[in-house]
C-alpha cells in the first residue's frame, strides 16, 4: 500500500463519515461544522491526488461557505442547539432506499467500466497552475466567463429576492 493510497482512503473515509454526521446530529451548528470538516477532508484528498491548486481552493472556499451556512442555520432553525432533539425528517425509508440505490449504481459503474490506461505521473503543482490558467484564458474562456456572469446574476437575484420590500405611500 502506497502513502498516496493510504491518504486518499483516509481522507475519503473522513469526508464520507462527516457527511453522514451532517444528517445524524440534532444540533444544526454541529451539522454545519460536520459539513465543513467533510469538505475540508475532500480538499485534503485532492491534495493527496496531487491536485494542489484545487485542494487549497476547496479548503479555502468551503471554510468560508460553511461558516456562512452555520450563521444561517442558527438564524433560521427552530432549535439550532438541538437540545429538544426535534426530528426534522420525512419519508425516511424512501430517502434511505434512494441513497443506497444511487450509491450501489455509482459503485457498479466505477467497478465494471473499463477506464482504459491509467496515468502514473501528473504535472507538478506549478505546471498544473500554468496549464489551468492557459486553459481558462484560452479554449475554455467562454465557459469560464459564462460562469462569472452566472455568479454575478445569482448574486443580484439573491439580493433582490432577499431584500425587504418597502411599502411606499403616495406622498413618497
Amino acid at each position, binding site marked *: 500500500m502506497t502513502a498516496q493510497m493510504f491518504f486518499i482512503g483516509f481522507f475519503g473515509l473522513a*469526508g464520507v463519515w462527516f457527511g453522514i454526521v451532517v444528517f445524524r446530529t440534532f444540533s444544526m451548528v454541529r451539522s454545519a461544522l460536520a459539513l465543513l470538516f467533510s469538505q475540508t477532508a475532500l480538499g485534503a484528498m485532492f491534495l493527496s491526488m496531487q491536485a494542489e491548486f484545487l485542494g487549497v481552493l476547496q479548503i479555502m472556499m468551503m471554510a468560508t461557505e460553511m461558516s456562512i451556512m452555520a450563521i444561517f442555520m442558527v438564524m433560521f432553525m427552530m432549535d439550532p442547539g438541538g437540545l429538544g432533539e426535534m426530528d426534522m425528517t420525512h419519508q425516511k425509508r424512501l430517502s434511505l432506499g434512494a441513497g443506497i440505490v444511487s450509491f450501489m449504481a455509482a459503485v457498479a459503474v466505477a467497478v465494471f467500466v473499463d477506464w482504459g490506461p491509467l496515468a502514473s505521473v501528473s504535472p507538478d503543482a506549478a505546471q498544473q497552475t500554468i496549464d489551468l490558467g492557459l*486553459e481558462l484564458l484560452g479554449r475554455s474562456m467562454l465557459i469560464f466567463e459564462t460562469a462569472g456572469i452566472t455568479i454575478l446574476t445569482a448574486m443580484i*437575484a439573491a439580493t433582490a429576492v432577499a431584500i425587504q420590500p418597502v411599502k411606499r405611500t403616495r406622498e413618497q
Partner: protein
Amino acid sequence: MSIELLLALITGAALFGVGIYGALSQTNLVMIMMGIELILAGAMVNLVAFWRYLHPDNPAGQMFVLIIMTVMAIEMAVGFGVAIARFRAKGSVEMEEAAELKG
C-alpha cells in the same frame, strides 16, 4: 484498475448517496441545501480522480471542477436568498409548510 482511482470513485459514490438521502429526507431548506452540497462534492471528487488518473495532461478536467465549485456557490447564494424571503413571509423555512409551492 488502480486502487487509488477506485477508492476515489467509491468515495464520490458514497457522498452522492449520502447527499441524495439528505436532500430527500430533510424538511428544512438549509438542510436540503447541505444534501445538494454533498451531491456536488461527490461529482467533484470523481472529476478530480478522472483528471488525475486518466488525463493528467489535460487541464480541462480541473476546469470542470471549478465549474462545479461555481454551481455550489450559486446554489448557496440563491438558496439563502430564497430562505430569507421565505422566513420573512412565513416565519419558517420548513418545507412541509410550503405545500402551496406545489405546482
